């Protein structure tokens, strides 16, 4: 089956076997929208690896995966795509190979380069949704500025220790400057103290993937202009408003 085969079936109201368990949640129309959608995942580490896995299984038609890093031993505790076999391999390329194993209907474009101001427009402008799976604050702020400039929704998450935050940034709403000071020691991050354990990025990434599905299908209510903050150490889950 190709993506076109699946879309043809869905157009006739029939459900491709591999998407049967999706339909009760997002409907036939939702699945068609996902298969026609284009999503950029910026970062293929702890957050990105899980997001890519979930979006491929859910059946998002095109994934552009951007990461210039290669897997190291220190990634093995939490990054789904980091295995003993992929050590030293580029993260974006490894992610595309994983997607091909999961769902050959999903087209991928692996970009084994760091996201920056020079390549931002070229890599993002033809996307329906952008996912922030980065790990530095300055890069996140640049990504948010570019997403808002290009008028593309951005799904943000960040984690540290037992703590994480997820939110959706729309072109006209408040941006990540509400969450990170842009002056002073903006790169002093608490994950350098609290660490990045196995489960926290998976929790945040799963919610990000769900946000992407909601944005693309129109089902449900997104976290736009909001921030879901969680601290699983104390069982705190708070929905905050970015104003």
């Amino acid at each position, binding site marked *: 089956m190709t993506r076109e085969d699946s879309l043809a079936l869905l157009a006739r109201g029939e459900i491709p076997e591999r998407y049967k368990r999706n339909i009760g949640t997002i409907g036939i129309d939702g699945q068609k929208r996902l298969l026609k959608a284009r999503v950029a995942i910026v*970062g293929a*580490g*702890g*957050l*990105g690896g899980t997001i890519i896995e979930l979006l491929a299984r859910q059946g998002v038609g095109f994934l552009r995966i951007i990461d210039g890093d290669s897997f190291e031993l220190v990634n093995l505790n939490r990054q789904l795509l980091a295995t003993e076999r992929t050590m030293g391999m580029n993260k974006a390329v490894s992610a595309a190979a994983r997607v091909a194993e999961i769902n050959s209907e999903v087209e991928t474009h692996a970009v084994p380069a760091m996201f920056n101001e020079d390549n931002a427009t070229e890599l993002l402008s033809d996307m329906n949704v952008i996912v922030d*799976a*980065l*790990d*530095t*604050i300055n890069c*996140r702020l640049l990504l948010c500025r570019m997403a808002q400039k290009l008028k593309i929704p951005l799904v943000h*998450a*960040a*984690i*540290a*220790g037992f*703590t*994480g*935050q997820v939110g959706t940034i729309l072109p006209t709403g*408040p941006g990540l400057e*509400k*969450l*990170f*000071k842009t002056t*002073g*020691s*903006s*790169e*002093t*991050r*608490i*994950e350098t*103290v*609290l660490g*990045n354990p196995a489960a926290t*990025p998976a929790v945040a990434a799963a919610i990000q993937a769900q946000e992407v599905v909601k944005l693309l299908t129109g089902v449900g209510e997104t976290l736009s202009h909001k*921030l879901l*903050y969680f*601290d699983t150490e*104390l069982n*705190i889950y*708070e*929905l*905050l*408003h*970015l*104003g």
Partner: protein
Amino acid sequence: MRIEVRLYATLRRYALSAADGVLSIVVPEGSKASDVIASVGVNADEVHIVMVNGVSSPLDQVLAEGDRLGLFPPVGGG
């Protein structure tokens, strides 16, 4: 006036009397978020997000009786 201060993640270490980071304190009328940050001894450089009653607010936000002030450090890992 009495307000509640909630310190999150690494900022909880400033709440010596409360392991969960939640403090109920009395502050002068007209106090701003920045005044409270100073009075509880939190290093202002570590505070990236200020929430008053769950809404993102500036440091010079004037607080009212019963307000809930949430202070968050920067979370940047991925």
